[in-house]
């Protein structure tokens, strides 16, 4: 596949991620922060997020599994997940966290479990999507091309 084609593919794919709500404007900001001094910034941050979220989700699973659920602790974890997901622009994950926190306040264990499940799913989804995107980027770079600047104009 030639570079131009790959770049168009990359653009289309990225746009679809935005339209479907997987990513939001914050992700664009991250991309803009990436430059020659910091060429792998986006990949690094995203990887960091998934590592961190993996741990948080594990902690959440354990916490919700207790006989007597500590909602404060759960709320703290979800709050952190919300913060980090919003920092990288993972919109759907963030929205799930917001709903999750509401149920925490109500101390509704069942609803919280459902939310947890949903958050895990969303994290998986966005992780796959981003991995695909990064692979595309690598291919473009390998072929000598450059990543086009994404603009939120849709």
């Amino acid at each position, binding site marked *: 596949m030639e570079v131009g084609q790959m770049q168009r593919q990359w653009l289309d794919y990225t746009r679809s991620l935005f339209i479907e709500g997987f990513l939001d404007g914050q992700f664009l900001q991250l991309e803009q922060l990436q430059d020659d001094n910091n060429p792998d910034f986006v990949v690094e941050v995203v990887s960091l997020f998934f590592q961190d979220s993996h741990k948080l989700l594990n902690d959440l699973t354990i916490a919700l599994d207790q006989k007597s659920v500590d909602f404060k602790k759960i709320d703290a974890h979800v709050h952190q997940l919300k913060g980090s997901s919003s*920092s990288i622009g993972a919109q759907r994950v963030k929205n799930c966290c917001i709903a999750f926190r509401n149920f925490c306040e109500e101390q509704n264990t069942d609803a919280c479990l459902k939310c947890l499940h949903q958050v895990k799913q969303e994290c998986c989804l966005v992780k796959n999507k981003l991995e695909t995107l990064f692979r595309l980027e690598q291919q473009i770079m390998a072929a000598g091309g450059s990543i086009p600047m994404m603009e939120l104009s849709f």
Partner: protein
Amino acid sequence: MTMENGVDDSSDQFPKGMRVLAVDDDPTCLMVLETLLRRCQYHVTTTSQAIKALKLLRENKFDLVISDVHMPDMDGFKLLELVGLEMDLPVIMLSANGDTKLVMKGISHGACDYLLKPVRIEELKNIWQHVIRRKKFDSKEKNKTRNSDKPNSETGNVVGSAGTGKSEQNGKLNKKRKDQDDEEDEEQDNGHDNEDPSAQKKPRVVWSVELHRKFVAAVNQLGIDKAVPKKILDLMNVEKLTRENVASHLQKYRLYLKRISCVANQQANMVAALGSADPSYLRMGSMSGVGHLQALSGSGQFPNNAFRSFPPNGMVSRLNTPTGLNVHGFPSSGAFHLGQSQNLNNSSVEQLKYLSSIVPVNQNSVHGMQVPMGLDPLQNNKGVIPVQNLTTGIDAKTNFPVSNKLPDPQSRVTSGADPPLLGNSNNALMLEARPQDTQRVIEYENLASSVPSQHSELPFSLLDQGRYSDNWSNAVQSSGIQTGSYPSSESFRQTAIPATDNMASLPLQEGNLSVSSSISLLPNQSYNSLIDTHSQSVILANRTGHVSNNDVPFQGWDDHNQDGSYPSNVVCSTINTVTPVSSAVCHTPMNSTLHRNLDFNYGDSLQMKRDAVAKLAAKETSLKPHLGNIMNQQKSQQSHFSNNVGSLEDLVSSMMKQEQDEMKLLDGDFICDNYSGGISM
């Protein structure tokens, strides 16, 4: 000693190369933040631990600190307070949670800005303004003090504290930093005409570890009660250090010591006070006290106003003992039955921490106390009166729970179950104790112990009336949040302080100050609400009809139990808005710091205090004796309060009625929820 010249030197390059310290436990956010800051061309250092951050701040020079609110090792608000106290740097809070009450808490604790995650680069591009503003105001403050040897320049005082004073003055709790900034500007304009801030910019003194060590050595040598800026300056023998610099630093230092000692004392007092808490009493004190203060002072500026109305000496002593100071106040006042809920509310420990969370006073009865703190010696009576009332009314039972609640002012208010009024002082206590007396008792103890220490500090500063006012203004200005707030909050707190000993004095104050607020809180529920001066102030505010935000903060509190201190801050702010005097205003910033400490992780705060105390102890062996002196001084001051109590009583009673009504309206859920939440902090 490191001296930083005015902004002028580096203005060419500024804000490039501005040294920023970023603190966030979330690695993802930290990395994004770091990159964003570097993109703004700032010089960035990052850390994920608050403790490490403090260490870095002590060892290196920084211009600005950006910190996350929720951190595992230390609450962001606590860090905020410590940074303000020790290094007097502008601090920006960062959080994914943008609830109004949380933001309010941040501002009242002295944050100069509150950003929401995810942070945008546009917002970061402007953060340098906080550094400039602070420098400018500090210089102005110093200039003013120099020109007019009295603390009268309220504006100056207010201005100094990075906008915290402003908020107080406005009495508009809702106003965010921007407003604060605007006000500050106005303040400056109102300041001495002959002073041109830009022309008379004084070099900002950075209190490095070395410098501070010299300072502490000088203070110890002189004796904490005899340490006056001039003498300290002479002993330190440092070039280019002015009396004003020392004065403001001394102010902060005193508050800091007080806070530490208060916590310790408070705990002890609390235990004692628990028995006798009287919810009704608390009510009186906390809200009315505040109200009075404001009325008394009349001026919008908190530090001045609040203090004006109360005789600094008299007030201080009172405050210190029972309410504000928490620790000291109680034991000495005796009259303050604090045992009553009021005392508890005072959670003097926390209050002390705040340094002068005057607002809290209202809640507990300590209020009366607090106000006096800052006031000029001339005015005083008001503060005295409340104190007296407090003692009479407070029954151990109710008060106790109330005061504990500090941490969660909002929730407290609504719950009203406990004698929430205590608010400030209570908050600390309330938070933990709320539902059960036993719990409270325990908490009280903690608070009591801490409180006393705090008290000692307060009276100390108060004693030095002349200087105090001077320092006060300086402190307020320069220290920004912490010092400024401390005195005010202290005064308030005092009333609220449940400290057993000091409690006696507290009731007086609280009665006056927080009458309105306390009343409403007490009956209802959550102790937490009471404790939180915020809640009280809210109530108070509602009463007067000024504050519109009251409701908002309350509700939001549930979430923030963890923050603990938040409630107190809120209270303060609401009170401020309500009363024109603006004493309330002052409270906010101060209270917030105080409350913050108190409410939040009581345990943590205590721990911190203990650590701090340990440090202090190591540093100054003479601390204890000083405290003793302070106590004595307080006693003498208390007499002044009695005079003022009368007028406050009236106010309090009227407020109480209102508050009671208010309390009913409050949603009990909050408190309950908060309560559970808060406790687990």
